């Protein structure tokens, strides 16, 4: 394609965008809405999963020591495991006090009859997924009587987190397809409104690509603008909502990662562009079929 032609095609697309103001606006509205919805879904799925992971991460392993254990050595072995984030020693007196408090019992009576609890370490894993492996490894350490953790709760939470991740992925794929549909159907409608023009261009001797280019550029513009608008609506809206949740529901910590936001923004804009171009291609094909 000569530079001259390229210039012409771009100016052609640009003037079509301006002159079809109403229709361009309508298409951009639709695309923004579609992408915004997609973004909301991504954020929801992401947060749900993060929430489940957070809960699971709060679970600790209690490593009970045998009567004759060497505390320092056990601690060293525990810390040597790179999957372990933190290790804290809990003397049996502290454990009993905690027990008494939790069950509302009289601590003094209980301690008078002798403390049946062992000394223990509380171990926090780096990744909740590793909890089982860490517990197993801990039991191999000489001087460790038993490694316990809230097995049921943890496996539940982990399963849940994985389920949400999978469901989120499926939902995002489905919604991505839905967005593609929305964007391409919308662009197809704008092309439908101009099908006569396409025919005229053909009759004057324009090749299919000569006709396509301005429409592609237009679709690209509409899609990209839609993506930008969606991002511009979504990110500040999410930031506001997240801070609202943080301050009112203190125990829920919404994901507030800049990387995620940037990735989401870029993702939406790219999807908008891609879908816009694809939508134009698909939409035009029908009218370019007839020579």
């Amino acid at each position, binding site marked *: 394609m*000569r530079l*001259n*032609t390229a210039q*012409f095609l771009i100016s*052609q697309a640009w*003037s*079509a965008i301006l*002159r*079809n103001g109403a229709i361009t606006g309508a298409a951009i509205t639709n695309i923004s809405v579609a992408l915004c919805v997609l973004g909301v879904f991504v954020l929801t799925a992401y947060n749900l999963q993060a929430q489940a992971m957070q809960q699971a991460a709060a679970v600790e392993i209690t490593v009970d020591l045998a009567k004759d254990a060497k505390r320092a050595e056990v601690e060293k072995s525990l810390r040597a495991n790179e999957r372990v984030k933190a290790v804290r020693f809990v003397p049996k007196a502290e454990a009993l006090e905690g027990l008494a408090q939790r069950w509302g019992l009289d601590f003094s009576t209980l301690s008078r009859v002798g403390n049946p609890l062992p000394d223990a370490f509380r171990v926090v894993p780096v990744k909740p997924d590793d909890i089982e492996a860490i517990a197993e490894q801990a039991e191999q350490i000489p001087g460790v009587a038993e490694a316990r953790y809230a097995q049921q709760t943890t496996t539940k939470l982990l399963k849940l987190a994985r389920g949400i991740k999978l469901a989120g992925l499926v939902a995002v794929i489905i919604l991505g397809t839905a967005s593609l549909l929305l964007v391409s159907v919308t662009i197809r409608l704008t092309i439908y409104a101009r099908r006569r*023009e396409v*025919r*005229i*261009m*053909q*009759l*004057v*001797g*324009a*090749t*299919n690509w*000569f006709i396509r280019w301005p429409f592609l550029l237009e679709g690209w513009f509409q899609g990209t603008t839609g993506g930008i608008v969606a991002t511009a609506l979504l990110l500040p809206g999410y930031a506001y909502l997240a801070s609202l949740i943080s301050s009112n529901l203190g125990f829920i910590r919404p994901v507030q990662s800049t990387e995620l936001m940037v990735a989401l923004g870029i993702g939406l804009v790219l999807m908008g562009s891609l879908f816009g171009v694809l939508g134009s291609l698909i939409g035009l094909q029908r009218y370019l079929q007839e*020579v």
Partner: protein
Amino acid sequence: MIHIQDVSVAYPKGIQALSGVDLHFERGEFAFITGASGSGKSTLLQLIYRELEPTRGQVIVDGHDVSQLPRHRVPLLRRKVGVVFQDFRLLPMQTVWENVGFALDVIGATKRDKHHRVPLVLELVGLADRADAYPDQLSGGEQQRVCIARALVNTPPLLLADEPTGNLDPVISLNIVQLLCDIADRGTTVLCATHDTHIVDAMQRRVVALVQGVVVRDEKTGGSYDAA
């Protein structure tokens, strides 16, 4: 230049628009196509720029069988054919200037070329002062003249004019047809479908008359005496 050999066109529902038409036009020839409303004039012209394919027979333009043309070659054919459409077919979102320029854009003309030739043809059809208007801001006759300008601008070797003066007053009409004749004399093949007996009589050029899709008369020079 154009060889139409035993061509028939049948539309659905048994409408026979053309039946066994045999016509040959030399390079640089000028011919009127006359006939009553619905006699097949537009159909005949549509065959040549391949808006339509014949049901039977062959249409050979510039040595190529038009129906055998692969799809991607069709635009190349159309660039060699300037068409004045009966219903104008102007791009509604483009100005007069852009509509005319579009025929040049399509062949990849340079900007300079465009700025040279577009004003020239607009002057020729008397629309130099309406270059920035959009089609819906023009009178019927002005739109028709834009369409004529667009057909002329890239000086195609073949010009098809379908009722090019239907919306024009007698003076402009005569000027336009005179222009078409001059163009033919400079080597362009021109076919002009028309009802205007005045003009046919005035020009004394070749006349092909159709009646219900059949060529009933084909004279080298002639008037309109039995064109209807």
